[in-house]
Protein backbone atom coordinates (compact mmCIF):
# COMPACT_ATOMS: atom_id res chain seq x y z
CA UNK A 1 0.00 0.00 0.00
CA UNK A 2 1.41 3.33 -0.94
CA UNK A 3 0.30 6.54 0.55
CA UNK A 4 -0.30 9.62 -1.50
CA UNK A 5 -0.25 12.90 0.30
CA UNK A 6 -2.03 15.82 -1.25
CA UNK A 7 0.05 18.87 -1.98
CA UNK A 8 -2.94 21.17 -1.99
CA UNK A 9 -4.57 20.17 1.25
CA UNK A 10 -3.07 19.90 4.63
CA UNK A 11 -4.21 17.04 6.80
CA UNK A 12 -6.84 18.03 9.33
CA UNK A 13 -5.24 15.93 12.00
CA UNK A 14 -1.62 16.80 12.16
CA UNK A 15 -0.22 13.44 13.18
CA UNK A 16 -0.89 10.00 11.83
CA UNK A 17 -3.49 8.44 14.02
CA UNK A 18 -5.35 5.15 13.91
CA UNK A 19 -9.01 4.96 14.82
CA UNK A 20 -8.21 3.43 18.15
CA UNK A 21 -5.65 6.08 18.85
CA UNK A 22 -8.23 8.77 18.14
CA UNK A 23 -10.58 7.22 20.66
CA UNK A 24 -7.73 6.81 23.08
CA UNK A 25 -6.57 10.38 22.67
CA UNK A 26 -9.99 11.81 23.32
CA UNK A 27 -11.37 9.38 25.84
CA UNK A 28 -8.34 8.49 27.89
CA UNK A 29 -8.45 11.95 29.42
CA UNK A 30 -11.89 11.38 30.81
CA UNK A 31 -11.33 7.77 31.72
CA UNK A 32 -8.53 8.69 34.07
CA UNK A 33 -9.20 10.28 37.43
CA UNK A 34 -9.17 14.06 37.24
CA UNK A 35 -5.84 15.83 37.47
CA UNK A 36 -4.86 18.60 39.81
CA UNK A 37 -5.14 21.31 37.24
CA UNK A 38 -8.74 20.39 36.55
CA UNK A 39 -9.53 20.26 40.24
CA UNK A 40 -8.10 23.69 40.77
CA UNK A 41 -9.98 25.08 37.79
CA UNK A 42 -13.31 23.63 38.82
CA UNK A 43 -12.89 24.78 42.42
CA UNK A 44 -12.30 28.32 41.31
CA UNK A 45 -15.16 28.38 38.87
CA UNK A 46 -17.52 26.61 41.24
CA UNK A 47 -16.71 29.13 43.96
CA UNK A 48 -17.51 31.93 41.57
CA UNK A 49 -20.73 30.16 40.70
CA UNK A 50 -21.60 29.82 44.36
CA UNK A 51 -20.95 33.49 44.89
CA UNK A 52 -23.19 34.22 41.91
CA UNK A 53 -25.98 32.09 43.36
CA UNK A 54 -25.74 33.83 46.72
CA UNK A 55 -25.75 37.24 45.13
CA UNK A 56 -28.70 36.40 42.91
CA UNK A 57 -30.52 35.04 45.93
CA UNK A 58 -29.91 38.29 47.72
CA UNK A 59 -31.06 40.33 44.75
CA UNK A 60 -34.20 38.29 44.26
CA UNK A 61 -35.11 38.45 47.91
CA UNK A 62 -34.41 42.16 48.26
CA UNK A 63 -35.32 43.65 44.93
CA UNK A 64 -33.89 44.82 41.65
CA UNK A 65 -33.03 47.98 43.52
CA UNK A 66 -29.85 46.25 44.58
CA UNK A 67 -28.73 46.85 41.03
CA UNK A 68 -27.65 50.26 39.83
CA UNK A 69 -30.60 50.78 37.53
CA UNK A 70 -32.93 53.73 37.75
CA UNK A 71 -36.08 55.20 36.25
CA UNK A 72 -34.22 56.26 33.11
CA UNK A 73 -31.97 53.27 32.65
CA UNK A 74 -34.17 50.24 33.13
CA UNK A 75 -31.69 47.84 31.61
CA UNK A 76 -27.98 47.87 31.70
CA UNK A 77 -25.70 45.08 32.82
CA UNK A 78 -28.51 42.56 32.94
CA UNK A 79 -29.41 42.76 29.28
CA UNK A 80 -25.82 43.53 28.28
CA UNK A 81 -24.79 40.24 29.80
CA UNK A 82 -27.77 38.49 28.27
CA UNK A 83 -26.87 39.62 24.76
CA UNK A 84 -23.21 38.99 25.45
CA UNK A 85 -23.82 35.37 26.38
CA UNK A 86 -26.33 34.75 23.61
CA UNK A 87 -23.83 36.17 21.17
CA UNK A 88 -21.12 33.87 22.43
CA UNK A 89 -23.40 30.96 21.93
CA UNK A 90 -23.72 31.65 18.27
CA UNK A 91 -20.28 30.49 17.25
CA UNK A 92 -21.00 26.95 18.35
CA UNK A 93 -24.09 26.63 16.24
CA UNK A 94 -22.35 28.36 13.42
CA UNK A 95 -19.48 25.89 13.50
CA UNK A 96 -21.63 22.83 13.89
CA UNK A 97 -24.46 23.79 11.58
CA UNK A 98 -23.38 26.26 8.97
CA UNK A 99 -19.94 24.75 8.47
CA UNK A 100 -21.59 21.35 8.21
CA UNK A 101 -23.86 22.62 5.49
CA UNK A 102 -20.86 24.08 3.72
CA UNK A 103 -19.02 20.77 4.18
CA UNK A 104 -16.16 22.43 5.97
CA UNK A 105 -14.39 19.37 7.25
CA UNK A 106 -12.05 21.23 9.53
CA UNK A 107 -14.93 21.89 11.86
CA UNK A 108 -15.04 18.27 13.04
CA UNK A 109 -12.49 18.60 15.78
CA UNK A 110 -13.84 21.80 17.25
CA UNK A 111 -17.58 21.53 16.82
CA UNK A 112 -18.27 19.48 19.93
CA UNK A 113 -16.60 21.91 22.28
CA UNK A 114 -18.06 24.84 20.43
CA UNK A 115 -21.56 23.42 20.67
CA UNK A 116 -21.13 22.71 24.34
CA UNK A 117 -20.06 26.30 24.69
CA UNK A 118 -23.23 27.34 22.88
CA UNK A 119 -25.48 25.47 25.21
CA UNK A 120 -23.69 26.64 28.32
CA UNK A 121 -23.58 30.21 27.09
CA UNK A 122 -27.30 30.13 26.33
CA UNK A 123 -27.91 28.85 29.85
CA UNK A 124 -25.86 31.76 31.20
CA UNK A 125 -27.79 34.10 28.95
CA UNK A 126 -31.14 32.62 29.88
CA UNK A 127 -30.65 33.38 33.55
CA UNK A 128 -30.58 37.11 32.94
CA UNK A 129 -34.06 37.59 31.47
CA UNK A 130 -35.38 35.74 34.48
CA UNK A 131 -33.46 37.48 37.22
CA UNK A 132 -33.84 40.88 35.64
CA UNK A 133 -37.57 40.65 36.19
CA UNK A 134 -38.99 42.50 39.12
CA UNK A 135 -40.89 39.41 40.10
CA UNK A 136 -38.87 36.45 38.81
CA UNK A 137 -41.10 34.07 40.71
CA UNK A 138 -43.73 34.84 38.11
CA UNK A 139 -41.43 34.15 35.17
CA UNK A 140 -43.69 31.32 34.03
CA UNK A 141 -46.23 33.95 33.05
CA UNK A 142 -44.33 34.58 29.84
CA UNK A 143 -45.27 31.15 28.57
CA UNK A 144 -48.66 30.56 26.99
CA UNK A 145 -50.23 28.03 29.27
CA UNK A 146 -53.94 27.71 29.95
CA UNK A 147 -54.69 29.69 33.11
CA UNK A 148 -57.49 30.85 35.35
CA UNK A 149 -57.22 34.40 34.14
CA UNK A 150 -58.49 33.76 30.63
CA UNK A 151 -55.58 35.92 29.64
CA UNK A 152 -52.86 35.02 27.19
CA UNK A 153 -49.85 36.92 26.03
CA UNK A 154 -48.84 39.83 23.89
CA UNK A 155 -47.38 38.31 20.78
CA UNK A 156 -46.38 41.75 19.59
CA UNK A 157 -43.70 42.06 22.23
CA UNK A 158 -40.16 41.38 21.08
CA UNK A 159 -39.51 40.14 24.59
CA UNK A 160 -41.99 37.38 24.01
CA UNK A 161 -40.32 36.58 20.70
CA UNK A 162 -37.16 36.32 22.76
CA UNK A 163 -38.77 33.81 25.05
CA UNK A 164 -39.64 31.62 22.10
CA UNK A 165 -36.37 32.22 20.28
CA UNK A 166 -34.13 31.52 23.24
CA UNK A 167 -36.03 28.49 24.43
CA UNK A 168 -36.21 27.05 20.91
CA UNK A 169 -32.58 27.81 20.34
CA UNK A 170 -31.56 26.21 23.57
CA UNK A 171 -33.61 23.08 23.10
CA UNK A 172 -32.73 22.58 19.45
CA UNK A 173 -29.04 23.19 20.13
CA UNK A 174 -29.12 20.81 23.04
CA UNK A 175 -30.81 18.13 20.98
CA UNK A 176 -28.41 18.65 18.10
CA UNK A 177 -25.49 18.39 20.46
CA UNK A 178 -26.85 15.31 22.11
CA UNK A 179 -27.53 13.60 18.80
CA UNK A 180 -23.92 14.27 17.88
CA UNK A 181 -22.80 12.79 21.18
CA UNK A 182 -24.62 9.48 20.80
CA UNK A 183 -21.98 7.60 18.70
CA UNK A 184 -19.24 8.80 21.02
CA UNK A 185 -21.21 7.84 24.07
CA UNK A 186 -21.59 4.40 22.52
CA UNK A 187 -17.85 4.31 22.02
CA UNK A 188 -17.40 5.20 25.68
CA UNK A 189 -19.93 2.58 26.66
CA UNK A 190 -18.06 -0.09 24.82
CA UNK A 191 -14.81 0.96 26.45
CA UNK A 192 -16.28 1.30 29.91
CA UNK A 193 -14.63 -0.78 32.59
CA UNK A 194 -16.94 -0.50 35.56
CA UNK A 195 -20.52 -1.84 35.50
CA UNK A 196 -22.00 1.40 36.79
CA UNK A 197 -20.35 3.45 34.12
CA UNK A 198 -21.41 0.90 31.56
CA UNK A 199 -24.98 0.98 32.75
CA UNK A 200 -25.21 4.76 32.67
CA UNK A 201 -23.58 4.98 29.29
CA UNK A 202 -25.86 2.25 27.97
CA UNK A 203 -28.86 4.32 28.88
CA UNK A 204 -27.60 7.61 27.54
CA UNK A 205 -26.23 6.15 24.32
CA UNK A 206 -29.74 4.98 23.49
CA UNK A 207 -28.63 1.55 22.33
CA UNK A 208 -26.47 2.85 19.56
CA UNK A 209 -24.85 0.03 17.65
CA UNK A 210 -23.15 1.75 14.77
CA UNK A 211 -25.58 0.22 12.30
CA UNK A 212 -25.14 1.57 8.86
CA UNK A 213 -28.88 1.85 8.43
CA UNK A 214 -28.92 4.18 11.42
CA UNK A 215 -25.84 6.03 10.23
CA UNK A 216 -27.60 6.57 6.96
CA UNK A 217 -30.55 8.28 8.68
CA UNK A 218 -28.27 9.88 11.21
CA UNK A 219 -26.37 11.76 8.59
CA UNK A 220 -29.61 13.01 7.10
CA UNK A 221 -30.85 13.99 10.53
CA UNK A 222 -27.69 15.96 11.15
CA UNK A 223 -28.11 17.72 7.86
CA UNK A 224 -31.74 18.53 8.65
CA UNK A 225 -30.90 19.77 12.10
CA UNK A 226 -28.06 21.81 10.68
CA UNK A 227 -30.45 23.17 8.11
CA UNK A 228 -32.90 24.12 10.86
CA UNK A 229 -30.27 25.43 13.22
CA UNK A 230 -28.78 27.73 10.63
CA UNK A 231 -31.82 29.97 10.17
CA UNK A 232 -32.51 29.50 13.87
CA UNK A 233 -29.20 30.93 14.92
CA UNK A 234 -29.70 33.86 12.60
CA UNK A 235 -33.23 34.33 13.87
CA UNK A 236 -32.19 34.27 17.50
CA UNK A 237 -29.85 37.17 17.31
CA UNK A 238 -32.17 38.90 14.90
CA UNK A 239 -34.89 38.65 17.49
CA UNK A 240 -32.56 39.71 20.26
CA UNK A 241 -31.68 42.72 18.15
CA UNK A 242 -35.37 43.39 17.65
CA UNK A 243 -35.70 43.97 21.38
CA UNK A 244 -33.92 47.14 20.52
CA UNK A 245 -34.70 47.68 16.86
CA UNK A 246 -38.47 47.67 17.30
CA UNK A 247 -38.36 50.13 20.17
CA UNK A 248 -38.48 53.86 19.67
CA UNK A 249 -35.40 54.79 21.64
CA UNK A 250 -32.84 56.60 19.48
CA UNK A 251 -29.77 54.40 19.20
CA UNK A 252 -31.98 51.33 19.42
CA UNK A 253 -34.47 52.03 16.72
CA UNK A 254 -32.36 50.95 13.74
CA UNK A 255 -33.06 48.61 10.83
CA UNK A 256 -29.40 47.68 10.64
CA UNK A 257 -29.59 45.86 13.93
CA UNK A 258 -30.40 42.31 12.83
CA UNK A 259 -27.41 41.78 10.51
CA UNK A 260 -25.27 43.90 12.77
CA UNK A 261 -26.12 41.81 15.78
CA UNK A 262 -25.69 38.52 13.94
CA UNK A 263 -22.26 39.58 12.71
CA UNK A 264 -21.41 40.75 16.20
CA UNK A 265 -22.60 37.47 17.64
CA UNK A 266 -20.46 35.44 15.29
CA UNK A 267 -17.57 37.73 16.05
CA UNK A 268 -17.90 37.46 19.78
CA UNK A 269 -18.67 33.75 19.61
CA UNK A 270 -15.59 32.96 17.63
CA UNK A 271 -13.52 35.02 19.98
CA UNK A 272 -14.80 32.99 22.88
CA UNK A 273 -14.29 29.72 20.99
CA UNK A 274 -10.72 30.77 20.35
CA UNK A 275 -10.20 31.65 23.98
CA UNK A 276 -11.54 28.33 25.12
CA UNK A 277 -9.90 26.14 22.50
CA UNK A 278 -6.48 27.62 22.98
CA UNK A 279 -6.75 26.65 26.61
CA UNK A 280 -8.41 23.34 25.87
CA UNK A 281 -5.87 22.09 23.35
CA UNK A 282 -3.11 22.87 25.78
CA UNK A 283 -4.71 21.42 28.84
CA UNK A 284 -6.19 18.32 27.21
CA UNK A 285 -3.29 17.69 24.80
CA UNK A 286 -5.47 18.09 21.77
CA UNK A 287 -2.79 19.82 19.70
CA UNK A 288 -3.08 17.26 16.95
CA UNK A 289 -6.78 17.74 16.58
CA UNK A 290 -7.12 21.42 17.18
CA UNK A 291 -4.26 22.44 14.99
CA UNK A 292 -2.66 25.74 14.19
CA UNK A 293 -4.63 25.86 10.99
CA UNK A 294 -7.89 25.64 12.95
CA UNK A 295 -6.78 28.60 14.97
CA UNK A 296 -5.77 30.43 11.86
CA UNK A 297 -9.08 29.77 10.18
CA UNK A 298 -10.89 31.16 13.16
CA UNK A 299 -8.63 34.19 13.19
CA UNK A 300 -9.71 34.88 9.65
CA UNK A 301 -13.34 34.59 10.64
CA UNK A 302 -12.66 37.06 13.42
CA UNK A 303 -10.95 39.46 11.09
CA UNK A 304 -13.85 39.33 8.66
CA UNK A 305 -16.65 39.65 11.22
CA UNK A 306 -14.69 42.31 13.07
CA UNK A 307 -14.70 44.40 9.95
CA UNK A 308 -18.39 43.70 9.47
CA UNK A 309 -19.01 45.00 12.93
CA UNK A 310 -16.82 48.00 12.21
CA UNK A 311 -18.82 48.65 9.09
CA UNK A 312 -21.97 48.55 11.17
CA UNK A 313 -20.56 51.11 13.59
CA UNK A 314 -19.77 53.40 10.70
CA UNK A 315 -23.13 52.86 9.10
CA UNK A 316 -24.91 53.76 12.29
CA UNK A 317 -23.13 57.06 12.39
CA UNK A 318 -23.76 57.75 8.76
CA UNK A 319 -27.45 56.95 9.04
CA UNK A 320 -27.77 59.02 12.20
CA UNK A 321 -26.37 61.96 10.33
CA UNK A 322 -28.19 61.24 7.10
CA UNK A 323 -31.56 60.73 8.75
CA UNK A 324 -31.58 64.30 9.94
CA UNK A 325 -33.26 63.05 13.11
CA UNK A 326 -32.01 65.23 15.95
CA UNK A 327 -32.44 62.56 18.58
CA UNK A 328 -30.50 60.00 16.54
CA UNK A 329 -27.75 62.44 15.84
CA UNK A 330 -27.50 63.38 19.44
CA UNK A 331 -27.32 59.81 20.65
CA UNK A 332 -24.41 58.96 18.41
CA UNK A 333 -22.48 62.09 19.20
CA UNK A 334 -23.19 61.40 22.83
CA UNK A 335 -21.85 57.88 22.47
CA UNK A 336 -18.60 59.04 20.99
CA UNK A 337 -18.12 62.19 23.01
CA UNK A 338 -20.51 62.02 25.94
CA UNK A 339 -19.97 60.73 29.44
CA UNK A 340 -19.72 57.16 28.24
CA UNK A 341 -17.21 57.90 25.48
CA UNK A 342 -14.66 55.75 27.27
CA UNK A 343 -16.91 52.75 26.82
CA UNK A 344 -17.51 53.57 23.20
CA UNK A 345 -13.86 53.89 22.35
CA UNK A 346 -13.00 50.75 24.28
CA UNK A 347 -15.50 48.99 22.06
CA UNK A 348 -14.13 50.46 18.85
CA UNK A 349 -10.52 49.75 19.70
CA UNK A 350 -11.18 46.20 20.85
CA UNK A 351 -13.52 45.23 18.06
CA UNK A 352 -12.31 47.13 15.04
CA UNK A 353 -8.70 48.09 15.48
CA UNK A 354 -7.15 45.23 17.43
CA UNK A 355 -8.42 42.42 15.15
CA UNK A 356 -6.66 44.13 12.26
CA UNK A 357 -3.49 42.46 13.50
CA UNK A 358 -4.90 39.27 12.07
CA UNK A 359 -3.91 40.46 8.63
CA UNK A 360 -0.45 39.27 9.61
CA UNK A 361 0.12 35.56 9.33
CA UNK A 362 2.73 35.72 12.03
CA UNK A 363 0.13 37.03 14.44
CA UNK A 364 -2.37 34.37 13.45
CA UNK A 365 0.21 31.72 14.13
CA UNK A 366 1.27 33.09 17.47
CA UNK A 367 -1.05 31.48 19.95
CA UNK A 368 -0.25 33.86 22.75
CA UNK A 369 -1.12 36.92 20.71
CA UNK A 370 -4.19 35.23 19.31
CA UNK A 371 -5.28 34.43 22.81
CA UNK A 372 -4.77 37.99 23.96
CA UNK A 373 -6.60 39.40 20.98
CA UNK A 374 -9.48 37.00 21.55
CA UNK A 375 -9.76 38.32 25.09
CA UNK A 376 -9.79 41.87 23.78
CA UNK A 377 -12.58 40.98 21.40
CA UNK A 378 -14.56 39.41 24.23
CA UNK A 379 -14.18 42.62 26.20
CA UNK A 380 -14.95 44.78 23.21
CA UNK A 381 -18.10 42.88 22.39
CA UNK A 382 -19.32 43.15 25.96
CA UNK A 383 -18.81 46.87 25.72
CA UNK A 384 -20.65 46.97 22.41
CA UNK A 385 -23.80 45.75 24.13
CA UNK A 386 -23.20 48.03 27.08
CA UNK A 387 -22.78 51.00 24.78
CA UNK A 388 -25.88 50.18 22.78
CA UNK A 389 -28.08 49.59 25.80
CA UNK A 390 -26.87 52.07 28.34
CA UNK A 391 -25.82 55.05 26.30
CA UNK A 392 -29.02 54.98 24.31
CA UNK A 393 -31.15 54.90 27.42
CA UNK A 394 -29.29 57.33 29.58
CA UNK A 395 -29.99 60.29 27.34
CA UNK A 396 -33.10 59.85 25.31
CA UNK A 397 -35.83 62.26 24.32
CA UNK A 398 -36.49 64.47 27.30
CA UNK A 399 -33.34 65.94 28.86
CA UNK A 400 -35.17 66.25 32.16
CA UNK A 401 -34.84 62.54 32.78
CA UNK A 402 -31.30 62.08 31.62
CA UNK A 403 -29.33 60.08 34.12
CA UNK A 404 -26.18 58.11 34.62
CA UNK A 405 -25.67 54.48 35.44
CA UNK A 406 -23.07 52.81 37.55
CA UNK A 407 -23.17 49.16 38.54
CA UNK A 408 -23.40 48.00 42.12
CA UNK A 409 -21.39 45.17 43.60
CA UNK A 410 -24.43 42.97 43.16
CA UNK A 411 -24.41 43.38 39.41
CA UNK A 412 -20.68 42.86 39.18
CA UNK A 413 -20.80 39.73 41.29
CA UNK A 414 -23.74 38.40 39.28
CA UNK A 415 -21.74 38.85 36.10
CA UNK A 416 -18.71 37.13 37.62
CA UNK A 417 -21.06 34.43 38.84
CA UNK A 418 -22.26 33.85 35.31
CA UNK A 419 -18.66 33.24 34.29
CA UNK A 420 -18.50 30.84 37.20
CA UNK A 421 -21.49 28.98 35.80
CA UNK A 422 -20.02 29.01 32.33
CA UNK A 423 -16.66 27.63 33.30
CA UNK A 424 -18.03 25.18 35.83
CA UNK A 425 -20.27 23.63 33.23
CA UNK A 426 -17.54 23.75 30.63
CA UNK A 427 -15.05 22.05 32.92
CA UNK A 428 -17.64 19.44 33.79
CA UNK A 429 -18.22 18.93 30.10
CA UNK A 430 -14.57 18.39 29.21
CA UNK A 431 -14.22 16.14 32.21
CA UNK A 432 -17.16 13.85 31.57
CA UNK A 433 -17.87 14.00 27.86
CA UNK A 434 -15.68 13.68 24.81
CA UNK A 435 -14.64 17.22 23.96
CA UNK A 436 -13.90 16.22 20.38
CA UNK A 437 -16.37 14.49 18.16
CA UNK A 438 -14.58 11.16 17.84
CA UNK A 439 -16.69 9.60 15.14
CA UNK A 440 -16.55 12.74 13.07
CA UNK A 441 -12.81 13.07 13.39
CA UNK A 442 -12.48 9.48 12.28
CA UNK A 443 -14.18 10.35 9.04
CA UNK A 444 -11.57 12.99 8.29
CA UNK A 445 -8.58 11.07 9.52
CA UNK A 446 -7.66 10.25 5.96
CA UNK A 447 -8.48 13.65 4.64
CA UNK A 448 -5.77 14.81 2.27
CA UNK A 449 -4.29 11.36 2.47
CA UNK A 450 -5.44 8.62 0.27
CA UNK A 451 -4.50 5.07 0.92
CA UNK A 452 -4.50 3.60 -2.48
CA UNK A 453 -6.10 0.26 -2.19
CA UNK A 454 -6.70 -0.73 -5.73
CA UNK A 455 -3.46 0.53 -7.28
Amino acid at each position, binding site marked *: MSEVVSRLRKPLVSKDRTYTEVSDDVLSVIEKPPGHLWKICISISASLLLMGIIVVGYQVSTGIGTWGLNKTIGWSWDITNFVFWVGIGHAGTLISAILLLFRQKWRTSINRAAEAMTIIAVMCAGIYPIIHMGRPWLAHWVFPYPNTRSL*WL*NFRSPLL*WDVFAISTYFSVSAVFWYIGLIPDL*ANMRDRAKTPLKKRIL*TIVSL*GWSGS*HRTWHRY*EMLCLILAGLATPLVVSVHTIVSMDFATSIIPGWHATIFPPYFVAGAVFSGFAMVLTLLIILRKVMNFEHYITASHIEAMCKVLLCTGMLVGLAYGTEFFIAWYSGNQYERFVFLNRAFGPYAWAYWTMVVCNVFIPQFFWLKSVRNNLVIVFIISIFVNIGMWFERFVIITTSLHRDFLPSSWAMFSPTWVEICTFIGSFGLFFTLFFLFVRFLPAIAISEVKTVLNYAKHKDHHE
Partner: protein
Amino acid sequence: MSNKYLLGVFHDEHDMIHAAKALKKSKIVIHDIYTPFPVHGLDQYLDIKPTRLPVVTLVAGTTGLVLALLFQYWVSVIDWPINVGGKPFNSFAAFIPVAFEITVLFGAFITVFAFLMRSKLAPVFSSGIMHSGATQDKFVIALAVKDASFDTQNTSKTLADLGASEVSIREVK
Protein backbone atom coordinates in the same frame (compact mmCIF):
# COMPACT_ATOMS: atom_id res chain seq x y z
CA MET B 1 -37.16 -15.55 20.10
CA SER B 2 -33.63 -14.89 19.18
CA ASN B 3 -31.81 -14.11 16.02
CA LYS B 4 -28.49 -15.43 15.02
CA TYR B 5 -26.04 -13.40 13.03
CA LEU B 6 -22.83 -14.22 11.37
CA LEU B 7 -20.37 -11.39 11.90
CA GLY B 8 -17.39 -10.54 9.78
CA VAL B 9 -15.10 -8.10 11.53
CA PHE B 10 -12.80 -5.92 9.45
CA HIS B 11 -10.01 -3.61 10.50
CA ASP B 12 -10.07 -1.45 7.46
CA GLU B 13 -13.14 0.19 5.99
CA HIS B 14 -11.87 -0.31 2.45
CA ASP B 15 -11.58 -4.04 3.01
CA MET B 16 -15.05 -3.99 4.43
CA ILE B 17 -16.45 -2.12 1.45
CA HIS B 18 -14.72 -4.55 -0.82
CA ALA B 19 -16.22 -7.44 1.09
CA ALA B 20 -19.68 -5.95 1.02
CA LYS B 21 -19.43 -5.51 -2.68
CA ALA B 22 -18.32 -9.13 -3.10
CA LEU B 23 -21.11 -10.41 -0.89
CA LYS B 24 -23.67 -8.44 -2.82
CA LYS B 25 -22.26 -9.89 -6.02
CA SER B 26 -22.64 -13.37 -4.64
CA LYS B 27 -26.27 -12.61 -3.73
CA ILE B 28 -25.68 -12.93 -0.03
CA VAL B 29 -28.05 -10.62 1.79
CA ILE B 30 -26.22 -8.41 4.23
CA HIS B 31 -28.27 -7.80 7.37
CA ASP B 32 -26.38 -4.67 8.38
CA ILE B 33 -22.93 -3.24 8.64
CA TYR B 34 -21.66 -1.76 11.88
CA THR B 35 -19.06 0.98 11.68
CA PRO B 36 -17.56 3.49 14.11
CA PHE B 37 -18.34 6.35 11.74
CA PRO B 38 -20.54 6.74 8.71
CA VAL B 39 -18.95 5.02 5.78
CA HIS B 40 -20.31 6.21 2.49
CA GLY B 41 -21.06 4.02 -0.48
CA LEU B 42 -22.63 1.12 1.35
CA ASP B 43 -26.27 1.91 0.62
CA GLN B 44 -26.32 -0.08 -2.59
CA TYR B 45 -25.02 -3.22 -0.89
CA LEU B 46 -27.61 -2.97 1.82
CA ASP B 47 -30.46 -2.01 -0.48
CA ILE B 48 -31.18 1.12 1.54
CA LYS B 49 -33.69 3.49 0.06
CA PRO B 50 -33.28 7.23 0.60
CA THR B 51 -34.59 8.19 4.04
CA ARG B 52 -37.91 9.98 4.34
CA LEU B 53 -36.84 12.07 7.31
CA PRO B 54 -36.93 15.31 5.26
CA VAL B 55 -40.59 14.67 4.59
CA VAL B 56 -41.21 14.29 8.30
CA THR B 57 -39.42 17.58 8.87
CA LEU B 58 -41.48 19.31 6.22
CA VAL B 59 -44.75 18.07 7.64
CA ALA B 60 -43.75 18.78 11.21
CA GLY B 61 -42.47 22.23 10.43
CA THR B 62 -45.56 23.13 8.47
CA THR B 63 -47.74 21.89 11.32
CA GLY B 64 -45.80 24.02 13.73
CA LEU B 65 -46.09 27.04 11.51
CA VAL B 66 -49.82 26.68 11.02
CA LEU B 67 -50.51 25.94 14.67
CA ALA B 68 -48.41 28.87 15.81
CA LEU B 69 -50.10 31.29 13.46
CA LEU B 70 -53.56 30.03 14.28
CA PHE B 71 -52.88 30.14 17.98
CA GLN B 72 -51.55 33.67 17.89
CA TYR B 73 -54.46 34.76 15.75
CA TRP B 74 -56.93 33.11 18.09
CA VAL B 75 -55.34 34.66 21.16
CA SER B 76 -55.06 38.14 19.71
CA VAL B 77 -58.18 38.45 17.62
CA ILE B 78 -60.78 35.96 18.72
CA ASP B 79 -60.37 34.98 22.37
CA TRP B 80 -59.73 38.41 23.82
CA PRO B 81 -58.95 41.20 21.39
CA ILE B 82 -57.05 43.84 23.31
CA ASN B 83 -55.83 47.15 21.95
CA VAL B 84 -52.10 47.01 22.47
CA GLY B 85 -50.27 50.14 21.50
CA GLY B 86 -52.81 51.01 18.82
CA LYS B 87 -51.71 48.04 16.78
CA PRO B 88 -54.41 46.07 14.98
CA PHE B 89 -55.70 42.98 16.74
CA ASN B 90 -54.33 40.91 13.93
CA SER B 91 -50.76 42.18 13.95
CA PHE B 92 -49.70 39.54 11.48
CA ALA B 93 -46.17 40.82 11.00
CA ALA B 94 -45.53 40.59 14.70
CA PHE B 95 -46.66 36.98 14.76
CA ILE B 96 -43.99 35.85 12.32
CA PRO B 97 -41.03 35.51 14.68
CA VAL B 98 -42.86 33.24 17.08
CA ALA B 99 -44.34 31.28 14.18
CA PHE B 100 -40.87 30.81 12.78
CA GLU B 101 -39.48 29.61 16.08
CA ILE B 102 -42.32 27.15 16.55
CA THR B 103 -41.76 25.89 13.00
CA VAL B 104 -38.14 25.12 13.80
CA LEU B 105 -39.01 23.66 17.18
CA PHE B 106 -41.61 21.32 15.77
CA GLY B 107 -39.44 20.47 12.77
CA ALA B 108 -36.42 19.65 14.87
CA PHE B 109 -38.08 17.77 17.66
CA ILE B 110 -40.48 15.72 15.60
CA THR B 111 -37.70 14.80 13.20
CA VAL B 112 -35.49 13.72 16.05
CA PHE B 113 -38.29 11.64 17.54
CA ALA B 114 -39.02 10.13 14.16
CA PHE B 115 -35.36 9.30 13.80
CA LEU B 116 -35.18 7.72 17.21
CA MET B 117 -38.32 5.68 16.65
CA ARG B 118 -37.38 4.62 13.19
CA SER B 119 -33.89 3.64 14.32
CA LYS B 120 -35.28 2.04 17.46
CA LEU B 121 -33.08 4.16 19.64
CA ALA B 122 -34.26 4.66 23.17
CA PRO B 123 -32.85 4.73 26.64
CA VAL B 124 -32.27 1.02 27.25
CA PHE B 125 -30.70 -0.84 30.07
CA SER B 126 -28.93 -3.39 27.97
CA SER B 127 -27.98 -2.96 24.41
CA GLY B 128 -28.28 -5.61 21.80
CA ILE B 129 -25.18 -4.52 20.04
CA MET B 130 -23.42 -6.75 17.59
CA HIS B 131 -19.82 -6.07 18.32
CA SER B 132 -18.27 -3.80 20.89
CA GLY B 133 -15.48 -2.80 18.54
CA ALA B 134 -17.91 -1.41 16.02
CA THR B 135 -18.09 1.87 17.93
CA GLN B 136 -14.35 2.33 17.96
CA ASP B 137 -12.30 0.83 15.14
CA LYS B 138 -13.98 -2.29 13.77
CA PHE B 139 -16.15 -2.56 10.69
CA VAL B 140 -18.59 -5.38 11.12
CA ILE B 141 -20.65 -7.02 8.42
CA ALA B 142 -23.58 -8.89 9.87
CA LEU B 143 -25.36 -11.62 7.97
CA ALA B 144 -28.62 -12.98 9.30
CA VAL B 145 -28.59 -16.68 10.01
CA LYS B 146 -32.22 -17.20 9.27
CA ASP B 147 -32.67 -20.92 9.05
CA ALA B 148 -30.90 -24.10 8.42
CA SER B 149 -30.57 -23.34 4.74
CA PHE B 150 -27.97 -20.71 5.59
CA ASP B 151 -24.57 -22.16 4.93
CA THR B 152 -22.74 -20.88 7.91
CA GLN B 153 -19.51 -22.57 7.31
CA ASN B 154 -19.11 -21.54 3.71
CA THR B 155 -20.10 -18.01 4.30
CA SER B 156 -17.66 -17.74 7.19
CA LYS B 157 -14.96 -18.82 4.93
CA THR B 158 -15.99 -16.31 2.29
CA LEU B 159 -15.82 -13.56 4.87
CA ALA B 160 -12.43 -14.62 6.06
CA ASP B 161 -11.25 -14.72 2.49
CA LEU B 162 -12.54 -11.22 1.97
CA GLY B 163 -10.28 -10.00 4.76
CA ALA B 164 -12.31 -10.37 7.91
CA SER B 165 -9.95 -10.65 10.78
CA GLU B 166 -12.53 -12.39 12.86
CA VAL B 167 -15.67 -14.28 12.00
CA SER B 168 -18.17 -15.21 14.67
CA ILE B 169 -21.75 -16.05 15.35
CA ARG B 170 -23.74 -13.84 17.64
CA GLU B 171 -27.18 -14.34 19.00
CA VAL B 172 -29.22 -11.34 19.78
CA LYS B 173 -32.47 -11.36 21.65
